C-alpha cells in the first residue's frame, strides 16, 4: 500500500481527535484539560511525569531506599542510570539527581537510595521526613553509565554514595532472594569500594552478601582503617587489572586520578561523577546573560537588574523594589543573594529543572558566577 493510499484511512480519526481536543480546550481555557485531570489522575498517561512514594526502607542510620510508583509514561531504565526528581521540601520545589538502584522490576516500581548528607535539604527530607504517598515530579531516566554489551571481566571502583549506580547493576545481575543470591550471570566482577568508615558505608551488607555468594570479589577500603586510597595502589589490590574494564563512580577527585592512571597505562575506563558540580557561593561574580551573549563583573551589592542594564542587556523590569515581579528571569546556573534578606538562591546546571530557578533581578545580586537566560 502506498503512502497516498494510507493517508485518508488514518486521517479522519486523527482529525476527529484533534477537533475534540480543541473543543475541550475551549471549554477549560485559560487552564488546560490536563489541569483538571491532574486533580484526579496525576500518574495517568499523558500527564507530566510524576511518581508516588510507596515505601521508605532505611538502609543505615542516614540512608534509605525510596520506592516509587512512576507515572504511566515512565519509559523504563537500564541499571546504572539516574533520574531527576523534583520534590517539595518546606513548600519549595527542589530538583536532584539520584541513581536508580534496582534494575527494572516486575512490579513496575523504581527505587533510589539516598544518603542524607550534612545540610542536604533534599537528602535529609527523603531519608528522615518523607511521608509515604507523597507525589514527586520526575524526568525520564538518563545517564550513559550502563553495562550494555560489556566484556565479561569488570572492575567497579566506587567511593561513598557512588556505590548506588553500581548496586543497581549488581542487583540486576545477581538478584538477592530469600534463598540467597541467584548466580545466573557469568560476569567476573571485582568491586573496590572506598568509604570513610565501615558504618558510613551504605549497601556494605549487600556487597558482603554478594562477595560471600561468590558473585563478586569485594575489596573494601576504609579511610579510618587503611588510609585514603591512592590509585597507584590499584594494580597491587587488583592483580589482573589490565584484563578488566573499569567502571568508576564517585567524587571528581578520585575520577580524575583514575582517568590519569588508566590513560597512562592504556586501560579502558567508564566514569560517572555522581554529583556533577557544586555551586561556589561568594560575594559578587561573573554574570553571563546567555541570550544576549554579554558578560559582566557584578559586585555583591549591585542588583543584577542594574548590572545587566549597565551592560546594555534588555532587562525586563518593573517596580525595582522587589514588589511587582516584573523582572523575574530564570537563573540557569550559579548563586544569587537576595539583597533584602541575604538569602542565597542557587541553580545547578543539569540538576535544576530545564526552566531554571526564577529570580527577581531587581533585588538579587551575584553571589558567585551566574548564568541567566536573557
Amino acid at each position, binding site marked *: 500500500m502506498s503512502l497516498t493510499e494510507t493517508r485518508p484511512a488514518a486521517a479522519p480519526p486523527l482529525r476527529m481527535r484533534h477537533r475534540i481536543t480543541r*473543543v475541550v480546550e*475551549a*471549554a*477549560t*481555557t*485559560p*487552564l488546560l484539560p490536563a*489541569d*483538571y485531570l491532574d*486533580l484526579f489522575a496525576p500518574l495517568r498517561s499523558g500527564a507530566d511525569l510524576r511518581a508516588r512514594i510507596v515505601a521508605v526502607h532505611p538502609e543505615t542510620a542516614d540512608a534509605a531506599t525510596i520506592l516509587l510508583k512512576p507515572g504511566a509514561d515512565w519509559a523504563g531504565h537500564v541499571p546504572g542510570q539516574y533520574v531527576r526528581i523534583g520534590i*517539595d521540601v*518546606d*513548600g*519549595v*520545589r*527542589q530538583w536532584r539527581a539520584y541513581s536508580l538502584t534496582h534494575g527494572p522490576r516486575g512490579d513496575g516500581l523504581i527505587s533510589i537510595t539516598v544518603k542524607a548528607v550534612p545540610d542536604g535539604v533534599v537528602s535529609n527530607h527523603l531519608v528522615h521526613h518523607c511521608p509515604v504517598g507523597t507525589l514527586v515530579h520526575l524526568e525520564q531516566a538518563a545517564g550513559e553509565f550502563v553495562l550494555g554489551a560489556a566484556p565479561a571481566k569488570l572492575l567497579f571502583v566506587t567511593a561513598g554514595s557512588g556505590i548506588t549506580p553500581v548496586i543497581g547493576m549488581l542487583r540486576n545481575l545477581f538478584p538477592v532472594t530469600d534463598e540467597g543470591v541467584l548466580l545466573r550471570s557469568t560476569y567476573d566482577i571485582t568491586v573496590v569500594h572506598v568509604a570513610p568508615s565501615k558504618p558510613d558505608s551504605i549497601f556494605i551488607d549487600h556487597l558482603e552478601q554478594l562477595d560471600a555468594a561468590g558473585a563478586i570479589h569485594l575489596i573494601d577500603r576504609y579511610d579510618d582503617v587503611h588510609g585514603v586510597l591512592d590509585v597507584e595502589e590499584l594494580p597491587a589490590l587488583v592483580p589482573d587489572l589490565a584484563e578488566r574494564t573499569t567502571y568508576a563512580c564517585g567524587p571528581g577527585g578520585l575520577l580524575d586520578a583514575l582517568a590519569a592512571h588508566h590513560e597512562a597505562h592504556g586501560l579502558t575506563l567508564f566514569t560517572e561523577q555522581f554529583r556533577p558540580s557544586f555551586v561556589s557561593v561568594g560575594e559578587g561574580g561573573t554574570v553571563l546573560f546567555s541570550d544576549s551573549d554579554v558578560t559582566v563583573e557584578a559586585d555583591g551589592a549591585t542588583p543584577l537588574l542594574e548590572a545587566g542594564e549597565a551592560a546594555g542587556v534588555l532587562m525586563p523590569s*518593573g*517596580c525595582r*523594589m*522587589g*514588589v*511587582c*515581579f*516584573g523582572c*523575574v528571569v530564570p537563573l540557569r546556573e550559579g548563586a544569587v543573594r537576595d539583597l*533584602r*534578606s541575604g538569602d542565597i538562591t542557587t541553580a545547578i546546571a543539569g540538576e535544576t*529543572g530545564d*526552566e531554571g*530557578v*526564577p529570580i*527577581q533581578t531587581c533585588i538579587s545580586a551575584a553571589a558567585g558566577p551566574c548564568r541567566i537566560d536573557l
Partner: protein
Amino acid sequence: MTVMSKRADNPTTHLTPEDIEQLGVELDAIRASVIESRGASDAAYIRKVVDVQRKLELASRAVLLASIFPPAWFVGTAGLSVAKILENMEIGHNVMHGQWDWMRDPKIHSTTWEWDNASTAEGWKHSHNELHHTYTNIIGKDNDLGYGIMRVDEDQRWHPMYLAQPLWNFINACFFEYGIAAYDLELGKNLRIPKEKRSEKFKANTKKTIAKIRRQATKDYVVHPLLALPTGSALPTLAANFTANLIRNVWSHSVIMCGHFPEGVETFERAAIPADETRGQWYLRQMLGSANISGSKAMHIATGNLSFQIEHHLFPDLPSNRYQEIAPQVQALFEKYDLPYVTGSLPQQVASAWHKVVRLSLPNGWVEDTNATNAPKQFSLLWKLATGGPKVRRAYDARRRQMQRREAALAA
C-alpha cells in the same frame, strides 16, 4: 478628601524623618518574620484552594448541564460564581503578584499564570503590580484612582460630565473584567492618539486582549451552552455563565472600591512625592492610602484577603493566607506612630465608597451645603454650574475658597 499634603489636618506632620525610617525598619521586620516561617503549610494552603476551586468549577459546570431545571440552575450558578470569585481573587490576583513564586512550582507561578478574566495576565501585571502598587493613590500616576473616568478627589476639577459618574461606576461594576482589560491597555489615552501614531506595543497588546476576550467568551457563551444542548439547557447555561460573570464582576469591583475609595483614605499629589522616596516613606504612603474590611474568614478568602488591603499594600508579595496573622502587628504600629488604620465592615465600606462617588459627582461642597430648605436654590446653582462653562465653575470655586478663608480667620 483633598490630597494629603494640602490639608490642614495632614496626619503625618507629627512624624520626623527618623520616625518614618524607623517605621520602615519595623515593617521590614514583620515582613522578614513571615518570609522566615514560610513553608509547607502555606504551600498546602494555596494547593488546597486551587484544588477546591477547580473541583467546585467542574461540579458547578456539570450541574449546569441540566440547568433547564431551576434548582440545578440556582445551584450551578451559585457554585460557578463562587469558583470564579475564588479564581480571580484568592488565586489569580495573588499568584500574579508573585506571592507563591517562592514555591518554584511552574504551575503556580506569576510568570506562567493566566486567569479567568477578560484582561490578560501580562497586561494586568503591568498596570496593577507595577503602576498601581508602586504609585498607589498618587493623583495622575495611579490610574486605579477613578480608572481615568471618574472624579475621586476634590482636587480633580469638576466638570458636568461627572454628574453621570454614579452611573458609570455601576456599569463598570457590572462589566468590570472588560473595564480592567480596557484600563490595562490604557484604551482611553491610546484611542485619543491618531491611529497611525499608536505604538506597536499598544497594537500588539490590543490583539492579545481581543484574543483573550474571544477565548473567554467562547468558553462561557458558546462551548458550555452547546455542551448543555442535549438536555435543552443551552440558554439557561448561557444565562448562568453570564450571571456568574456578573456576580464575580460586581463582587471584585466592590472589594477593590473598598481598598482605596472609602472616606479616610489619603490621596497624594505628584509634586509632594520626593524623587528619591525612601522605603519608609513608601511604606507610609501605602499605610495611609489603603483601607481594610472586617469580617469572617469566608469573607476574607472571598476577597482574596484584599480585606487586608493595608497589609497587602505594605507587602504585596507575601502569601495572602498570612495577612490576617500580621494584621494585629501592623495595627499596633499604626497606633504606635499615631496613624489612622481605616477599617470597617463590607456594607459600611461599600456605602462609604459609593457615597464618595456620588458626592464627588457634584461640585465641591454641594452635598454638604444642600438641605431641605435651600434645595431649590442649590439645584438652580447646579444647573448654572453644569451649563455655564468653565468660567462660571472657576468663579464658584474661588468664592468657596474665599468663604473658607473667612471662616478660618473668624475661628482664629
